[in-house]
């Protein structure tokens, strides 16, 4: 693909070599300044004892913050929640998104309307989503309780977000609701790019719908699924704003996740050193997961 710069005219070829770098410079410089530099600063802060209300006290403590984190019970609770959270939210989103995409790929009269409406949760601000669901889960006036009481599924109103046993599950449902349209849309795009003739051929050859799905549809969309899951993992890792607004991590530590814990440490305790250390640890863990995921799926897809 690469065409060697066969240069009959030297000036043009020199310009050609410099031009792309010149065009990239502004974007690269700005991202260096506002992304990479701050990132290094986080790593730097994590090696110091840095509490914001003692601004002159910036002492080197080496890996002490990390050691403290590993001995911190809340850190392990948050880690456990993070794992539960990611291992339930993403599969639930994929499953619901896949079903939705398969339905949207069929012929029915109001398909265009359904496709437009399904995306609405994706466009809503997460604060609004969080508050909306807090209102739905409200223990006295919430519609969730009323609905389940009428159906006879529960005997008395449940304080969904105030009860440590149900809080995390309630939040997982909210996050699933927020994220599944993204999968539906991505998978639908994948489905529409696999030629319809494949399905028709398989159907003529007598393949059952299930086999057709397993051997033709699914391989056809595996690439899209892989990308979507990857993007989503990172997204879900970022989206602690919903949790922050819904419960603030409580009751107790019932809905603490690692990014949230780091944020709360810095925000309420102003302990930027320790908060940075947790953020760094979380990032490293996420990286490991992403790399393992890429290795595995990369092999499976090819």
């Amino acid at each position, binding site marked *: *693909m690469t065409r060697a710069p066969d240069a009959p005219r030297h000036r043009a070829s020199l*310009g050609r070599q410099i*031009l*792309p770098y010149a*065009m990239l410079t*502004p*974007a*690269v410089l*700005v*991202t260096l300044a*506002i*992304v990479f530099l*701050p*990132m290094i*600063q*986080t790593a730097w*802060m994590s090696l110091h004892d840095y509490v914001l209300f003692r601004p002159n006290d910036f002492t080197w403590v080496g890996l002490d913050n990390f050691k403290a984190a590993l001995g911190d019970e809340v850190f392990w609770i948050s880690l456990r929640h993070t794992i539960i959270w990611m291992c339930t939210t993403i599969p639930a989103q994929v499953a619901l998104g896949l*079903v*939705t995409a398969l339905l949207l790929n*069929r012929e*029915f009269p109001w398909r265009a309307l*359904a496709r437009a*409406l*399904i*995306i*609405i*949760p994706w*466009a*809503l*601000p*997460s*604060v*609004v989503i969080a*508050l909306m*669901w807090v209102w*739905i889960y409200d223990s006295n*006036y919430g519609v969730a309780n009323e609905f389940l009481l009428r159906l006879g599924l529960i005997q008395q109103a449940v304080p969904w977000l105030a009860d440590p046993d149900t809080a995390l599950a309630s939040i997982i449902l909210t996050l699933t*609701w927020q994220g599944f349209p993204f999968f539906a*849309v*991505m998978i639908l*795009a*994948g489905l529409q790019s696999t030629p319809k003739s494949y399905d028709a051929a398989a*159907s003529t050859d007598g393949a059952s719908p299930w086999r057709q799905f397993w051997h033709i549809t699914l391989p056809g969309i595996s*690439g*899209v699924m892989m*990308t*979507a899951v990857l993007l989503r993992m*990172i997204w879900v*890792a*970022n989206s*602690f704003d919903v949790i922050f*607004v819904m419960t603030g991590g409580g009751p107790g530590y019932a809905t603490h996740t690692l*990014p949230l814990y780091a944020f709360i440490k*810095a925000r309420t305790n102003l302990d*930027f050193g320790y908060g*940075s250390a947790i*953020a760094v640890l979380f*990032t490293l863990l*996420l*990286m490991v997961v992403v790399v393992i995921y890429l290795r595995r799926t990369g092999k499976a897809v090819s």
Partner: protein
Amino acid sequence: MALHKPSTLRRILTTDLPMLAILCFTLGPYLWMALTSLSPQETLFTQGPSLLNATLENYTRLFATVGFADNLIDSMIVAGGTVAVGLSLSITAAYAFSRFNFRGKRILMLQFLLINMFPLVLLILPLFVLMRVLGLLDTHLALIIANSTVAIPFSIWMMVSYMNGIPRSLDEAAMTDGCTRMQALRRVVLPLCLPGIIATGIYIFITSWNEYLYALTLGGRNVRTITVAVQTLIGEYEVQWGLLTAGGIVGAMPATVLFLIVQKRLISGLTQGAVKG
């Protein structure tokens, strides 16, 4: 032999009804919020939300007493500013990625991809410290910079995919006719990918409009965006759900409408790489 055209009844059972159920799940919470916002505050807890005596009282109160209009303007400035920064920096960069082969191209592209992978919590702490040192806390600029950390890599990524869709032969033709590179970019490529640029811009606008954590951490007093304002409507002791849901509807409106307008083009841009790759 299998039925070639399934009966309408069967279609309704296997497609329409499940789809309807999923849509109810998707839209139910939103409609419930809309219904709550239209119910008068006094009867909300006694009778529950209902359309019977619907009122716009919550909305008028929102603008009259809470000062929501100012928050809308703040959000507008921040989101608009982020769009301007994101697009202006990424157009030339995307063109370079799309049209040239040069040393370090892969690494540079990878770098922009990687930025998206870092969790936000890793950036929010140092950006707070940085803004404090620079004295930029609680300004529009601070929020624009923070939102740009996401907007720049994202728009480069999108723009490269749109520009790759425009044949190289077009710029080459323009250059044979005497245009310089920059002229070819301005007169040929940019007009052709204008729809893509608009879609990218709108998407950046939506994400900055919806952004909450930066807005809360780096702003909050003088500059209070709509998302922060909605959240602060939660009182200490009593939550005014009518007012709060009205705020939610207003705050979500611009993003929702814009999203419905651009969704098709945006999704094609987002999925292009994934589908072909």
